């Protein structure tokens, strides 16, 4: 009897191991060069066109063909998937902090932030307002979002990294308005978040709520997402750039541990370095991200409002500090929501 049970177990285990090793086999047998880029949600269109550009460039340079697999999702959960074993060669995520998470797991060597130019940020973006055509509620700046009767749509900072930037930009505005008087600043963001009608779990969900379900008067959004929406529905929406906003520096890095295993170190480095070339920077601008190359950026003066006053995460003492001060349990965000 017992023998029979163990025979059954052995069979099941054998099947599991066979399927397991079969999975490994396909990865090792690859001949063509292949890399995986794990990225976040709104870069879908950007990397679809950049990958084509890079393939052409790489073939001309080395005569070799490359296959690039793309993966998109919420930045935080994408980082988590790499930590948990997703075989990414490069990561191109929304925040430096998400990459730090992978670094802490030992997959990326410290010092990655200075491996590429400009804090390893080949493009930047900022937070703007998307309003319905005509801007009936006369929304011009952050202050207008705190007025009675204005419906605001922004995702939940406690579940969406992007939403933290929205909050910090508002906080920065209040800081300048009240000259650092914290009681008044808290009141300001309290009033603003009292006007939030729906708090989605992520930026894409918030866009759906505002655009598809017609909720609210203003969506606090990434500039690239807002520009994309206006391009799709030019008659329905317009963009308002506030006087003050925050500079978001999406970061890129090589996943050292994985490229060593996959033998793709050179290719991964080329892939990320080429993002800084003039052609790529041009493409980045066309996809509504702000090119980090000043010269190329200035050509897009009619697309981006370059007069906006931008603070950066360093003004909040870095991401870890900002997160601890504002978004952990019982920190400022929880307090003003009570």
């Amino acid at each position, binding site marked *: *009897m017992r*023998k*029979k*049970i*163990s*025979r*059954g*177990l052995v*069979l*099941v*285990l054998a099947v*599991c191991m066979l399927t397991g090793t079969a999975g490994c086999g396909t990865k090792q047998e690859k001949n063509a060069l292949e890399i995986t880029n794990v990225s976040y949600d709104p870069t879908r269109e950007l990397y679809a066109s950049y990958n084509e550009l890079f393939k052409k460039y790489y073939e001309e340079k080395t005569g070799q063909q490359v296959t690039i697999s793309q993966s998109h999702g*919420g930045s*935080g*959960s994408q980082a*988590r998937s790499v930590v948990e074993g997703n075989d990414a060669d490069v990561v191109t995520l929304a*925040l430096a*902090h998400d990459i730090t*998470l992978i670094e802490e797991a030992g997959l990326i060597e410290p010092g990655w932030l200075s491996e590429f130019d400009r804090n390893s940020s080949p493009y930047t973006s900022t937070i703007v307002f998307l309003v319905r055509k005509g801007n009936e509620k006369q929304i011009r700046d952050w202050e207008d979002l705190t007025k009675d009767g204005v419906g605001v749509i922004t995702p*939940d900072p*406690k*579940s*969406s*990294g992007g939403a*933290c930037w929205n909050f910090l930009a508002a906080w920065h505005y209040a800081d300048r308005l009240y000259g650092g008087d914290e009681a008044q600043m808290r009141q300001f963001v309290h009033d603003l978040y009292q006007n939030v*009608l*729906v*708090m*989605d*779990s*992520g930026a894409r*969900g918030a866009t*759906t*709520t505002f655009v*598809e*379900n*017609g*909720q609210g008067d203003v969506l606090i959004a990434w500039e690239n997402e807002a520009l994309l929406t206006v391009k799709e529905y030019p008659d329905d929406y317009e963009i308002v750039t506030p006087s003050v906003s925050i500079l978001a520096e999406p970061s890129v890095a090589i996943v050292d541990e994985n490229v060593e295993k996959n033998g793709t170190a050179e290719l991964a480095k080329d892939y990320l370095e080429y993002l800084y070339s003039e052609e790529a920077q041009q493409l980045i601008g066309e996809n509504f991200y702000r090119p980090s190359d000043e010269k190329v950026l200035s050509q897009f003066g009619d697309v981006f409002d370059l007069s906006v006053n931008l603070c950066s995460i360093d003004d909040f003492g870095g*991401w*870890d500090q900002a*997160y601890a001060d504002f*978004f*952990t*349990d019982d920190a400022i965000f929880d307090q003003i*929501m009570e």
Partner: protein
Amino acid sequence: MGKKHVIPGFGMTLGTTVSFLCLLILIPLASILARSFQMSAQEFMALITRPNVAQAFRTSIGCSLIAALINTGFGFILAWTLVKYEFPGKALMDGMIELPLAMPTAVAGITLTKLYSDQGMFGKALGRLGIKVSYTRLGIIVAMVFVGIPFVVRSVQPVLEKLSPCYEEAAAMLGASKLYIVRRVLLPELLPALLTGFGLALSRGIGEYGSVIYISGNSAKEGTQVVSYVIMQKLNAGNVDYEGAAAIALVLLLVSFFMLLVINLLQRFTSQRTKF
């Protein structure tokens, strides 16, 4: 042991069952347990009794109870109609019952939100009556009813099919009123199946994520955050908090397990009563 089984393959099938259970259910559940035990008892209690966490438990359990009750009522009527009557399009309708299981829950959630928002088809009409559905607890119940209905129908249907009409006929001939037949003849037979359906729909509702998060609006202020959302907050946020997520998940598991246990006991009790 030593007893010979008449049907061959007992060792093989039991081996498969045990390894399957281990790989897919027991080991993952044990790892949740292990994770949440990395917290101290004090931290654990502090987290579980936080106002937003406690409110999320109330919302999840309350809404899924109401949704499961609605589903039990309507699921019974649906199953009754599909079994007892013949009408054109019956096979099609029967197939449609399972669609909520096949559809990605996020798609269902986004669609329901749009329909029931104050700009949507149903939401506009309901709004005139002063009823708000999307972004309220009512919306959560609507989504849970949607995902839970197949469980009740599919639990009740086979029992109804097998139930011979001779009992009803005998009762009628002995002079029982229609209401009395339903109450004393049909319901006792169906009660175990209804309880199973209720339990399945309930547990589906308590853990539901995809279809609920879009329609709920996730407002801590309005009490529309569900437990699965609070767990995802712990995992998505800037600093991933595995222990916190595992601790909340553990309590959720215990609550569900306890409720299912009660339902199973009730079911055993009722099915014994109707055994001849």
